[in-house]
């Protein structure tokens, strides 16, 4: 197969990748989209395998076979609640693969047709250094994100004095080293560039808290794309450049959506963190009485409603109570009650996480609505059932300019006739550490306990 021939196949492959992403515009076409993606990948791999640059196959086939077995087993076994850490782990693999490819291209540039050892074109050197830097950063950043999501590292932000100064210093040293590398083609400076980028990835993600993970994961998604594009520039391969750009912009857009849903900038998420003002709110906490109800009261309220909206949050995922929710919705629907779900963009630990968990419990996707599509419906809703969500329902975001979450779009649950809030205890104040006035409102009933147990208890009374 000639070079032109494989270039043509790469183009077809790129078109398939675009169609694949296009398929995700609706759940109806999404499965077809995934098939397009697989087809694009098969074409890309075959076009490379049958091109003259590849002449030895045994190693390659062994590597693909081992990878396939590992990948398929992981994909089959993983629990849907653990999706965020799985995606983080996968991102780290792309990053590391990019590092290896960049090193391979540095060590034997003639294989890639970009010159010979010690005489690589300057443009290729710059691209190589950028590719290795972004790849290494993606790898170590994703490893930290994985460890945090998996609970191996504390989800709390890890900060120390002079952190930002250290990061900036590292960036400057990195740029100087890349310049040095392009001038001298020295392997040692390339190695140090790799090491420093690993370090930078760790340092960038360590200070980010658990609830900001949707932003971090999207950002790392974006990085893995830019890493692929960087390698594409080095190898002068347009397929890698196109795909990298697609993935990179996808991750960037997701990060933007997540940041907007928290009314914060990406710099704020990465470097500043949320202002902590727990202390003065905690004192207020004890003065206000909350109306604490029982599962039976909740069942009565739900039974007498005509319209019910369920607001799930990360607490629902932790307690695995989506199956109980589905049962509750089915019981209510039997009595002719209208049941819908309202999802805030940053509920969960990755974009769209709640939707997958609800779908796992066989909740039809037509019943699940995004914030802007359902927010006007709360005024005509009889009962809102908030389960494991807190900050995303806090009306202070609309009224109190001094609140750290002021300006964040929230679900207007307080506008419904009745609000039922399931929470482990009254003391916890969500990740932002701020109090939620909805808990103490006249029309609110608090149900204290594990989300799964409480929902099952309500179902028990609904069946009677």
């Amino acid at each position, binding site marked *: 197969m000639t070079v032109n021939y494989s270039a043509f196949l790469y183009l077809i492959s790129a078109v398939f990748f675009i169609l694949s992403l296009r398929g995700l515009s609706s759940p109806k076409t999404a499965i077809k989209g995934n098939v397009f993606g697989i087809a694009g990948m098969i074409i890309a791999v075959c076009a*490379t395998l049958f091109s003259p640059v590849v002449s030895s196959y045994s190693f390659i086939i062994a590597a693909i076979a081992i990878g396939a077995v590992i990948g*398929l087993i992981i994909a089959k076994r993983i629990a849907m609640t653990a999706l965020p850490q799985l995606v983080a782990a996968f991102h780290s693999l792309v990053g590391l693969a990019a590092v290896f490819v960049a090193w391979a291209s540095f060590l034997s540039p003639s294989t890639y047709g970009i010159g010979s050892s010690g005489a690589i074109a300057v443009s290729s050197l710059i691209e190589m250094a950028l590719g290795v830097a972004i790849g290494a950063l993606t790898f170590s950043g994703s490893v930290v994100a994985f460890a945090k999501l998996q609970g191996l590292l504390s989800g709390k932000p890890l900060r120390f004095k002079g952190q930002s100064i250290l990061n900036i210093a590292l960036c400057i040293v990195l740029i100087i080293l890349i310049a040095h590398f392009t001038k001298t083609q020295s392997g040692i400076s390339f190695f140090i560039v790799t090491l420093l980028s690993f370090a930078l990835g760790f340092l960038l993600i360590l200070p980010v808290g658990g609830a900001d993970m949707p932003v971090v994961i999207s950002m790392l998604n974006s990085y893995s794309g830019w890493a692929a594009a960087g390698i594409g520039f080095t190898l002068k*391969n347009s397929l*890698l450049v196109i795909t990298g750009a697609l993935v990179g912009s996808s991750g960037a857009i997701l990060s933007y959506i997540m940041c907007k849903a928290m009314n914060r900038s990406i710099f704020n998420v990465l470097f500043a963190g949320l202002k902590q003002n727990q202390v003065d709110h905690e004192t207020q906490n004890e003065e206000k009485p909350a109306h604490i109800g029982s599962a039976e009261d909740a069942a009565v309220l739900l039974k007498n409603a005509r319209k019910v909206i369920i607001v799930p949050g990360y607490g629902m995922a932790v307690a695995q109570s989506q199956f109980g929710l589905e049962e509750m919705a089915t019981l209510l629907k039997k009595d002719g009650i209208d049941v819908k779900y309202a999802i805030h963009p940053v509920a969960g630990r990755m974009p769209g996480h709640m939707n997958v968990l609800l779908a796992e419990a066989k909740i039809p996707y037509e019943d699940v609505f995004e914030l802007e599509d359902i927010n006007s419906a709360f005024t005509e809703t009889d009962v809102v059932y908030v389960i494991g969500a807190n900050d995303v329902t806090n009306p202070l975001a609309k009224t109190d300019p001094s609140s750290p979450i002021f300006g964040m779009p929230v679900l207007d649950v307080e506008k419904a006739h009745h609000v039922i809030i399931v929470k482990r205890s009254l003391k916890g104040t969500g990740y932002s550490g701020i109090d939620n006035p909805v808990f103490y409102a006249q029309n609110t009933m608090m149900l204290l306990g594990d989300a799964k147990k409480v929902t099952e208890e309500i179902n028990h009374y609904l069946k009677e």
Partner: protein
Amino acid sequence: MPGNVTEELNAVTQSVSQATQQLENARTHLQNLTEHILNSSSVSGNDFVFLLTVFVLACFVGYYIIWKVTPALHSPLMSVTNAISSVIIVGALIAAGPESFSVSKFLGFLAVLLASINIFGGFAVTERMLSLFKKKKG
């Protein structure tokens, strides 16, 4: 007189052959020059501009497509883009391709392995997620 004609003829033939030789030289020179230009960094600069064009246009395509993705499918979007970004395997295959063994071939082998985990795992988990999204019964 005839002697003169022969001499002149000889001279003309000689200059013609000289000119042909010069032309041939010029041609080889030009050929070398073209090859030199094609191989030199100035054209790899053109390559860069070409790839940059492709890159920027692809970013725009990505921008418009991704905004059309329904928020409900943002998790599958992340896992499928993750699988697709493993197209970096193309670079890994080239590194692992040569017959002779070298460090870069070994790095290529490792990269093929990592990217394969990602490709198979990524597409399979996306498929699993998407199969969960069901319409209402009946």
